[in-house]
């Protein structure tokens, strides 16, 4: 029962990273200097993200609901120890959502569009950075559960080079994800979109190397724990191998295949990060841990949650499929 819920939680987080990640990345690309005319970028991003952006972010709400329902100990830990990063992320989410709405629903197109446009872009950078920082901090595990000091409890585990560099790496990863998605969707300026994707890819690789370097220098044991794990190594190799078919599908405008491969790549990257941890979610430097299996709620609660998830998915998926169908015709126009 617990494993099934962990699986659904992982799916929700994966879909959030994939769909909302592309959405965040698109926001950054919108303000990124490039040869693609700004207006064309805004129109494509609006068309590509508009119908689904609200539902994209509901995957995060689903992940939060599953967490506090089934794993209250983990939710408590995240809420307390990541008080400031999550607070900052929430702040970015509200600015981003509001500016996107204003950008696309303000009936008068005047100078205010530029302000919405910049707020949307900057808050997208802000959100992806904090998301990445949280992931980096969880991987580093630089906390001790017995710490009671303000700095140790609320700042130490994320105010360090590994978490910060991971924040930048995830920002570039989301940008790359979005660039792939938008290149596949673009009807005009396709060579320019391809060139932009390539540039972001180079920056992503550089950022990845720097993050690894910092991780190695700062916490070699923890680096080995994640990156010398055979499953993680295989997954990382696969994520690179998928690049070739990815380039092919973009070149041939095979939109669905391109999305599918982007999803597989992200599964590999996220799997490489979280597989070594499981069944733990929090693994601290002093070897104490909070595990999914130990921190789960009572069986009656898990059963009720499973009913809700199964019925909920049965209700949601047909509608979601229908929305995607309409969404495709929206882009094609």
């Amino acid at each position, binding site marked *: 029962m617990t494993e099934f819920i962990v699986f659904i939680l992982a799916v929700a987080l994966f879909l959030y990273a994939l769909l909302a990640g592309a959405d965040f990345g698109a926001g950054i690309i919108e303000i990124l200097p490039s040869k693609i005319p700004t207006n064309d970028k805004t129109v494509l991003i609006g068309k590509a993200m*508009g*119908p689904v952006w*609200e*539902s994209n*972010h*509901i995957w995060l*709400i*689903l992940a*939060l*609901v*599953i967490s*506090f*329902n*089934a794993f*209250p100990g983990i*939710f*408590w830990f*995240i*809420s*307390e120890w990541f*008080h*400031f990063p*999550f*607070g900052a*992320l*929430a*702040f970015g*989410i*509200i*600015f*981003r*959502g*509001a500016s*996107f*709405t*204003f950008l696309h*629903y303000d*009936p*008068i197109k005047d100078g205010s569009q530029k302000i919405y446009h910049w707020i949307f872009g900057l808050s997208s950078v802000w959100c992806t950075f904090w998301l990445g920082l949280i992931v980096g901090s969880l991987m580093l595990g630089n906390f001790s559960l017995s710490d009671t000091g*303000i700095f140790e*409890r*609320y700042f130490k585990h994320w105010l360090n080079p590994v978490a910060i560099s991971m924040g930048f790496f995830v920002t570039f990863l989301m940008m790359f994800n979005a660039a792939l998605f938008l290149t596949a969707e673009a009807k005009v300026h396709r060579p320019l979109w391809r060139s932009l994707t390539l540039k972001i890819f180079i920056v992503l690789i550089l950022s990845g190397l720097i993050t690894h370097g910092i991780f190695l220098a700062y916490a070699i044991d923890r680096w080995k724990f994640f990156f010398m794990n055979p499953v993680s190594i295989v997954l990382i190799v696969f994520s690179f191998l998928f690049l070739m078919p990815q380039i092919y599908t973009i070149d041939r405008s095979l939109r669905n295949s391109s999305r599918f491969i982007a999803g597989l790549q992200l599964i590999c990257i996220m799997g490489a990060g979280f597989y070594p941890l499981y069944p733990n979610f929090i693994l601290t430097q002093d070897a104490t841990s909070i595990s999914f299996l130990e921190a789960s*709620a*009572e069986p*009656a*609660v898990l059963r*009720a*949650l499973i009913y*809700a*998830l199964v019925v*909920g998915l049965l*209700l*949601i998926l047909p*509608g*979601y499929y*229908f*929305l995607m169908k*309409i*969404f495709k015709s*929206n882009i094609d126009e």
Partner: protein
Amino acid sequence: MINSAMDSLLAARLQMAFSLGFHIIFAVIGMVMPVFMSASYWHYLKKKNPDALELTKLWMKGVAIFFAVGAVSGTLLSFELGLLWPEFMKHAGPIVGMPFSWEGTAFFLEAIALGIFLYGFERISPWKHWFASFMVGVAGVTSGIFVMAVNSWMNAPQGFDFENGVFKNIDPFAAMFNDAWFSQSHHMTIAAFTSVSAGVLGIHSFLYLLGRRKNLNLLAIKIAAPFFIISALLQPLSGDLAAKDVAKRQPIKFAAMESLFETTRSAPLVLGGIPNVENERVDYAIHIPKILSYLAHGDLNSEVKGLNDFPKEHWPPVAIVHVAFQIMVFCGSLLALAAVLALLTIIRKKSLASNPWLLKLFVLVSPLGIVAIEAGWTVTEVGRQPWIIYGFMKTKDALTNAPALQLTFYTYLFLYLFLMVVVCWLFYRLILVHFLKKDGP
């Protein structure tokens, strides 16, 4: 910077109050406007009236704006629950998780249906398209009802055994269908319809009186008026049921609402006034003999518990609860009166638009529904203090230990005020384009 625990607690409570107070406006609009939008679209599909289509599209834009801002402020709230009240979520999360997960499903369906409606014009068959608009409304109302299950559980906690400070043997279904759910749900759902329909009537009456797009505004008035009349007339009955429920389950909250200090038989209803807590009386109030006993227990001679029956440390802030309750009742009564006048006009087979005074009254009462909702939530939440889970966990025990909560509060306050100004500005521009500019939309 805050040092004392009380300062942090106040900052966190104020932040939560502003977040909920901001979100609730968008939540109720997101619940009810899709129903109006759907009614207007139905009108267009049946009668092919171009004004109905334009009205549908105008309301659709409004729904999109309010829904999106409501979605992000709701996401923020789900963060704040954990960030400000981690101990509450740690214990209550598994108990109230089920209504939250159903609410998530309903909200997801609402977002999908809205996406289909926004982008489905001329891409899907008209009646399928209409069904999407209808589903936005159904999912929105359902979502609100599930959220009420969570709040009502905080007022009537059940579905668990409490042993040595731990919540055990959780029954999520008993928690969800708690004793307060029904009364809070119908009261809030009706309030949502009353406040939003009052707002819609007010805005379109104002534009009608200005002489702009008369047919379109008249159609909007015709759609909103039945919802307003029915909900505003039902609300006093719903309020009576809710008050009886509070008197039974949370007598201390009920006593604070009425500022009743001593337990009294044949207790009088207190109208208005300013509670003088130190001297345990209400200044400048009107007392109507025996009516409070009747309203609380359906018997003119029944006994109503007073605040002095409870330890003083368990008293909520009496003055705030009393004044908020009076504001809510006053606003609700005025809205019911406006509904009676509108109903009389219809019974006399006259058009609502034939009576400019009625339209002016609609304009005047239009903000009262939202004021009543804010006041009602103040009664519910402040009236439960000092408890976050009534009788089981105090609010101060649920608070995070994180520093600088005052700074966070001011930041969020600024954010919400800023967003409110921008949304109002956007709303003004929407009206400007559709009604006030000479060249029209």
